[in-house]
């Protein structure tokens, strides 16, 4: 069996696992980011501080440290996650923390007059945030958020350190057996690059679809 006949199907299996990680981590990370940002801006003191603490922690830890804590340290206190789940959880926390800073900044950049106008119509805070503030803030946050998601696609390769058989794990494994680093790591790199390109294109389409005159995203 030639090298490529052996390698390509295996790395495709790894790609499927990477996609599975991302399909979970991206939307849940975005939801966490929005929740953290709302908690920080609108929460009472304890809630706001808690959210700030979570953001500070997971932006402060190197991602690999977060992953190792979830996978190796948590079982010591009786909390066990399998490798795949550990990786997904770590990615959600990390990307959620980073993205939340963009969302928070965007919420705070919305002119106070928007809130006053919502209040004078008789909107509750919840309605105001849902119908007036977030639709504007999320548009502004989109470029930053999409950048973070592209980073997430690339750093999903760290799941290999927990034994998740995704693209990079397969690549390392093959290289240790066959030592053909040029073919192996270039292929892996190109797969990540193509995913990042697809994501960039998708975000550009979303940005264009959501574009409103006078409400252009701040870069």
């Amino acid at each position: 069996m030639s090298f490529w006949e052996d390698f390509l199907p295996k790395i495709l299996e790894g790609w499927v696992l990477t996609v599975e990680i991302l399909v979970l981590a991206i939307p849940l990370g975005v939801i966490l980011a929005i929740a953290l940002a709302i908690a920080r801006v609108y929460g009472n003191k304890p809630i706001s501080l808690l959210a700030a603490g979570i953001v500070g922690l997971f932006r402060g830890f190197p991602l690999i440290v977060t992953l190792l804590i979830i996978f190796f340290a948590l079982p010591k206190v009786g909390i066990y996650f399998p490798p795949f789940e550990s990786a997904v959880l770590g990615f959600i926390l990390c990307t959620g923390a980073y993205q939340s800073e963009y969302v928070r900044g965007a919420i705070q950049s919305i002119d106070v007059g928007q809130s006053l106008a919502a209040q004078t119509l008789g909107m509750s805070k919840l309605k105001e945030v849902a119908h007036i503030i977030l639709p504007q803030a999320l548009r502004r946050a989109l470029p930053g958020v999409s950048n973070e998601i592209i980073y997430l696609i690339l750093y999903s390769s760290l799941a290999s350190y927990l034994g998740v058989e995704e693209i990079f794990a397969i690549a390392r494994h093959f290289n240790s057996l066959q030592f053909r680093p040029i073919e192996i790591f270039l292929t892996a790199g190109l797969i990540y690059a193509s995913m990042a390109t697809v994501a960039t294109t998708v975000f550009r389409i979303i940005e264009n679809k959501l574009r409103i005159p006078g409400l252009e995203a701040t870069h």
Partner: protein
Amino acid sequence: MPNENVVLKVENIYKNYGNNEVLKGVSFEVNSGEIKIICGPSGSGKSTLLRCLNLLTRPDKGHVWLEAEEVTNPTTNINKVRQKIGFVFQEFNLFNHLTALRNVSIGLEVVKGMKKNEARQIALRELRRVGLEEHAHKYPAELSGGQKQRVAIARALAMNPVIMFYDEPTSALDPQLIGEVLDVMKKLAKEKLTSLVVTHEMGFAQSVADEIMFIADGKILERGPPRELFWNPKHEMAKLFFKRIAELYRREGQ
């Protein structure tokens, strides 16, 4: 229980910001169908007063009633009260992500729980009332300042308020755009829509107002019919103020 002809009753409102006493006991009433004007030097607490009346800012002391309901009562549902007060801001504050039509209909949908189609019909009717039906599909950034303010008025009208508050509605507009907004306001005044207007537009005041209240130093220093107050103010500060306004008018050739 206030007189049932009284739409808004304001009693002894006080408001401090730190050591700065902005309002020092303001009282007045607005009867159904009346147009009352508040004017005075900048920094005299006019905007703060309006915001105290619908609790965008909570007054330190004093009471406000809207019809039979005490607005300042802590148990009052303020969101319900605010639906009955149309509020027009100096800076328009249109929702930037919504078309003119949706700006007008969103309160009906989100606050009053109206069906989308019904809200749309009312919104179109209100936009027609301010002469902007053909601009319904435009976003705020695509409208002129005067058009924005007319949409803001339509947005307030759509909620079917019992009173309109205007907070310097023409102060942020280029001079050539002021007229179209004042025309709409005059039309509404002629329809006897009860209104409380903070403005320095004395032409508007003279043509529609029932009373002008001159506020300075946190108090109503003088009040009366527009002509009387404008041409024959008693208080020194009022004399100075209206003289300046008159000079401004002459300069602008009005």
